[in-house]
């Protein structure tokens, strides 16, 4: 614990290696995560948090590589958190987002950190929100989060980012895909990347149809980009910062951040409940009950109630 305090003060002092180590510490164990969370109160909340999500291969990393220079121009410094999947089999991971984000010429002004999802299912890693708070506390003015390549429901990013950019490609699904719940509801700004490929106009049309029916939201910008050639990237950055400005002027930013705090507490509590449940399930007594219920000697409800009783102890 003493170590953690030293690391925090070094990181707040601008020591990059200390911040890097803290990012590992929060990935390591839940109690570290809580210890650090509690020392970062009151929440600072100065950083502009941009979430970038979309299916695998949509060009999220390449777009980020193109957005970073604009972020630097507007804010001076930028942190990038890039999440990639962990293998459910080996728990290993190949974190490859950095290949497309060299950015060497920006030197110390860019801090890129790769994170493995480590079994989390919402498109982020367990430690992502604490990592954002750390960057924020260390005065990084912008944090860009790249989620896993996602499908339709992994939308934790909504609860973490101020502005969510959804990256899609021409030919993505059809009007039915566009009207399914999930991805299209999450976007504050959309980028149709690889827009030089056929089908960009149709994708824009499908998206427009879909988002126009979401009554709770104002019409998001739908931008077209070709990340590999930088086409449309400046306009995309302007759309992102315009959304941010609207969040501030409308007061919605405060509301989103309240939701973020709520989400954080919810996650910490559900982690604890899961741990209690696993502990109960792993007791010999419950194992025996489960064995008996498998062969029909005991009603499964009995095992269930026993687990609940053990969790309440």
């Amino acid at each position, binding site marked *: 614990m003493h170590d953690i305090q030293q690391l925090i003060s070094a990181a707040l002092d601008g020591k990059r290696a200390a911040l*890097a180590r803290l990012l590992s510490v929060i990935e390591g164990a839940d109690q570290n995560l809580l210890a650090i969370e509690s020392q970062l109160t009151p929440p600072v909340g100065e950083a502009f948090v941009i979430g970038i999500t979309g299916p695998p291969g949509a060009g999220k990393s390449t777009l980020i590589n193109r957005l970073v220079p604009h972020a630097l121009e507007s804010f001076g410094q930028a942190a990038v958190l890039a999440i990639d999947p962990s293998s459910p089999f080996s728990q290993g991971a190949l974190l490859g987002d*950095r290949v497309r984000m060299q950015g060497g010429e920006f030197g110390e002004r860019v801090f890129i950190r790769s994170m493995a999802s*480590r079994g989390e299912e919402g498109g982020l890693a367990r430690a992502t929100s604490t990592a954002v708070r750390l960057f924020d506390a260390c005065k990084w003015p912008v944090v860009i989060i790249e989620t896993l390549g996602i499908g339709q429901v992994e939308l934790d990013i909504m609860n973490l980012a101020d502005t969510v950019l959804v990256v899609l490609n021409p030919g993505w699904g059809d009007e039915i895909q566009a009207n399914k719940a999930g991805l299209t509801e999450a976007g504050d700004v959309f980028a149709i990347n690889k827009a030089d490929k056929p089908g960009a106009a149709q994708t824009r049309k499908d998206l427009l149809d879909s988002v126009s029916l979401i009554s709770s939201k104002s019409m998001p910008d739908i931008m077209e980009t070709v990340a590999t050639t930088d086409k449309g990237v400046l306009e995309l950055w302007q759309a992102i910062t315009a959304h941010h400005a609207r969040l501030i002027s409308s007061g919605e930013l405060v509301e989103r951040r309240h939701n973020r705090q709520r989400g954080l507490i919810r996650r910490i509590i559900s982690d604890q409940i899961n741990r209690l449940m696993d502990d109960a399930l792993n007791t010999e007594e419950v194992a025996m009950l489960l064995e008996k219920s498998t062969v029909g000697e005991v009603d499964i409800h009995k095992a269930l109630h026993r687990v609940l009783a053990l969790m309440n102890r």
Partner: protein
Amino acid sequence: MDHSQKRILMAKTGLDGHWRGPTIVARALRDAGFEVIMIGMANTDDIVRAAVDEDVDLVGLNIGGHINVALRAVNSVREARPDVPIFAGGTVPPHAKKQLEALDVEVFPPGSQLVDIVAAADRLTGRSAD
């Protein structure tokens, strides 16, 4: 879930574009449960920055191009992260292998077995005690 995964940086030094070797090694390390951060072709500054910012437990260098470039990368990583072991692979000629080993870099020349590379990663990151 094990929360103590070790992190390994995999970088290519020089301008050699042969990706197959490091990709296969990265895959083997992933399957052995490591988190492997790939940065591809990178100059010394990029490698050092990644070693610091990613807080890795081990640096793997794929040696392409001139050995002096690789030696410079090794020295710079040592300076920034003296606590981090380094291993290397690729088409490393015998004289270059000696130079790297003199800097305490474990070298896996062509013909090396993936199991040996994984075992070295285990040992160098302290995941196994052998």
